[in-house]
Each structure stands twice: as C-alpha cells, then as structure tokens.
C-alpha cells in the first residue's frame, strides 16, 4: 500500500480548485439571470395590479407614485386602452382585460424559464458540493501525510 503522500496528487487538487472556481462563475451567471427573470416577473405582477386598480377606479382617478414617497392624483383618459409591448419591440393596443391576460401568460412563461434556471443552478451546486467534498478529503489526506512523515519534535525523545 502506498503512503498517503503518494495518494494525494497535488495536481488533482489544483485542477479541482479550478473546476470549483469555474462552476462558481457559471453559477454566478445563472444566479444573475434568475434575478433578472424574477425582476421581470415582479414587474409584470405590479403591472397587473395597476391595471386592475385602474379598471376598478370608478372615475378613472388613480394615485401616480412619482418617487420619494410622493404621489399625484391623476385621471386616466382611456383606462381600457393599454399600449403593450408584446415582443420584438412591437407595441399594440389591447383592452385592459386582454393586457392582464397577456401579462399573466408571460408570468407563467417566466416561471417555467425560472424553473429551468433553478434546476441548472441546483445541478451546478450539487457538482460544486461534490468537488468541495473531494477537495476536503484531499486536504485532510495531505495534512495526515505531513504529520505522519514529519520528524519528531525536540524533547519527545527520552
């Protein structure tokens, strides 16, 4: 049986460290993408809420937040005519109800995409955990090997 020092391949540890770093970078990119998707989903939800609020307002008067906690009472001229970017930078006019439906569909689509990104992230994390485990084992073996073969310290001899 070879000694522990032989079993711990320093190059393998280095490669594993590289892999870990690389997976980490990929995970970062996907996490960023997930955040973007989530922001888009939240924005769509807010738009739905606003459209429904405008639709429910009897005289078309709503509060328009202009930032800094300030709001204005505004009257929406045509609450049932919504200009909607449907994709490919094309904007069409839809009724309030149709616009809400469209946004709901888009949310469903985004949720499905988010799910796929989360799955990929989970896979990456599981691979990262695997590599971390192997790295820890390697380090432990290296430490043990060092302890085993280091010369005895002064004062230990009788």
């Amino acid at each position, binding site marked *: 049986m070879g000694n522990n020092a032989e079993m711990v391949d320093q190059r393998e540890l280095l*490669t594993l460290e*590289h*892999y870990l*770093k*690389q997976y980490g*970078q*990929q995970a970062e*990119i996907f996490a*960023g*993408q997930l955040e973007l998707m989530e922001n888009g989903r939240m924005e769509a939800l807010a738009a739905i809420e606003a459209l429904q609020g405008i639709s429910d307002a009897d005289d078309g008067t709503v509060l328009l937040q202009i930032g800094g906690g300030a709001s204005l009472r505004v009257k929406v001229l045509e609450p049932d005519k919504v200009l909607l970017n*449907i*994709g*490919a*930078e*094309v904007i*069409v006019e839809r009724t309030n109800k149709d616009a809400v439906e*469209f946004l709901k569909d888009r949310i469903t*689509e985004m949720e*499905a*995409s988010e799910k*796929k*990104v989360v799955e*990929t992230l989970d*896979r*990456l994390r599981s691979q990262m955990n695997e590599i971390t485990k192997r790295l820890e084992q390697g380090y432990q073996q290296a430490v043990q090997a060092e302890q085993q073969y280091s010369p005895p310290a002064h004062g230990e001899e009788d």
Partner: protein
Amino acid sequence: MFSGLRERLQAARAKLGISIEATMTPQPLQETPSAVQSVVQNPGVFSEKPTFANKIKTLIIDRELIVSEKELSDALSELEITLLESDVALQVTDAIIAHVRTDLVGRHRKIGESVDGLVVGTLKGALLDVLGKGFDLTEYVRNHQRPVKILFTGVNGTGKTTTVAKIGFFLKKQGFTVVIGAGDTHRAGAIEQIEVHAERIGIKIIQHQQGADPSAVLFDTVQYASSHKIDVVLADTAGRFHTKANLMNQLEKIRRVMKPDLIVYVDEAVAGNDAVVRAAEFDKTVGADAVILTKADMDSRGGAAISIAHTIGKPLMFLGTGQAYDDIMPFSPNQMVEDLLGDT
C-alpha cells in the same frame, strides 16, 4: 426547447386549419361567394374571373375548392401576433405571414383532402424560408485549407468561452485536431477557465498572461497550428458590447492579425430580439459569418433562433443546450421545424 413557441404555433396551425376547413365546405353556388370560389384546374395558377359554367364544372366535376384571403385574415392576424409575442422580429414575422398568405390564398384543394397537411406544409415552408440552410461546420472544415481559423465574438456573459470548448469537443469527436487560443486576456479568470476546459477535453491551448495583447496570443495560436499541422484554430475573445469603440477596434485588430476564415457571433437565445439586434450590430462592425445561440434549452419563446438568420442574413450554426461539453447541436432547420410543427 422553444416549448412556448411550439404551443403557440400548434394553436395557430389549428386555427388556420379551421379557417380553411370552413372555406372548403361546399357552398351553394352564388355569384358573389365569400368563403369559397370555384376554380379552374392547374393548382397555384390564378384564373380569370370564374364564369358560372366554370364554377359548376370545378365544384361538381373537379371537386376542387379555392381559399380566399378574406377567410384567412383572422387566422393570419392571430399567427402574426403569435410570432411577435414569441419575440420573432417584425421583418421575419412579415416574411412568414407573406409566405403563408401567398401559399394558401388561391390554393386549389380537392374536396376531402387533408387540410392539416396543407397548413402544416405551408407553415413548414414559411419557417424554412426564414431559417435559412444552417451551417455545416464539419463540411466547411473538411473542404477548407488548414488550419481553419475561427474567431468567436460576442457580448459579455453569453457563454462564449464554454461554447469554444464545446466546439472544440465537437470537432475533436469528428476526428479533427484543434488548438484553442486564449484571446480573452481581459476578464479575470478567463484564461484559467479556458485552460481547464482545454485540459478536460484534451485540446492544446496557447495562452499569454492576463492583460496581454489578444492579437499576439491568437497570432501565436495560428503559428502553432500551422507548424503542427493542426486542422482548426478556435480563437476565444473577451466579451464586448458593440458600443465600446476601443474594444471593437481591438477586435478589428485581431481580425487583421489572425485573418480568420470564419467569424462566429455568439449570443444567448434567451435574449430574444436583443440578440438579433446585437448580432446585426456586430455584423456591421467586425462582420459575422455565422451565429451560435447558447442557452437554447432555457428559451421557451424561440424568437432569436427563428429571426437571426433572416435578419442578418447569416446562418445559425449551433444551438447550445446545456452544461455538458456535448450539449451543443448543429442547427438543422428541418429538425427545428419538425420539432415545432410535428405531431409528437
């Protein structure tokens, strides 16, 4: 992949089928028929205004019907919205609608013939028209003087470096020898990243230090390939936006120095129309011979994949479909159309 687009196209297919089915129900002969006009023979040829006698002959004897535009207008409008909602570029949407309209309106059909077959055939034709022919890299490398130099460009964070590794793996599997040039000397960790990839797939890499001139790295890579009779040079570069003039000038310099045979633009399918716009900009500034779309497995809309070839006039070469090295598929228009409109 592209599941949302598939669902929408299947719905559009059904709607078109219903519209045509309605027109194909034999109507009582009238002078001003709206849904069905009787026709003379020779499918695809518009006849002169049909006479009463012709109508009787066509409907009773030939048992043929012709679809008019009026009946299709609703279905075509719906198809148009469907495509736009899937982020298919406006000009591509227009091209598809025009194809479908031209193909279906005035089409002669025997009574009892499959309507669905007609619709699917038309939609497939329209999509194939805009998807182009794809780009067979294997064939290109086989028929080109070695080393074939391929320069990869694109914006940041789209998976360019991973794509270079995947293409290297793909070409190696096809029996070619490959060398990678680590031309992304700008991003921290990029050289290490491509080095790890190269090691894992068993491909030689030429690299300088971080911050070095990428043109020099790639020049050395080409020299190495020439002296070692390597088949293909894959040149990685730093991601950049087309609006950054200094970085685009650097890319121009790389192009002058390494004289690539192919410039491949890499972007992510999930970027949708943005990817199409960016590809067009890159094509204008440094040129592009083909496009690779990454993360296609996460793209439900498919707009970029449908639009990019028609919009910039350059073929789609590969689709990235996952994290593993073999998660890359040569783009096949027929396969894609089959996936979108097939029955399975």
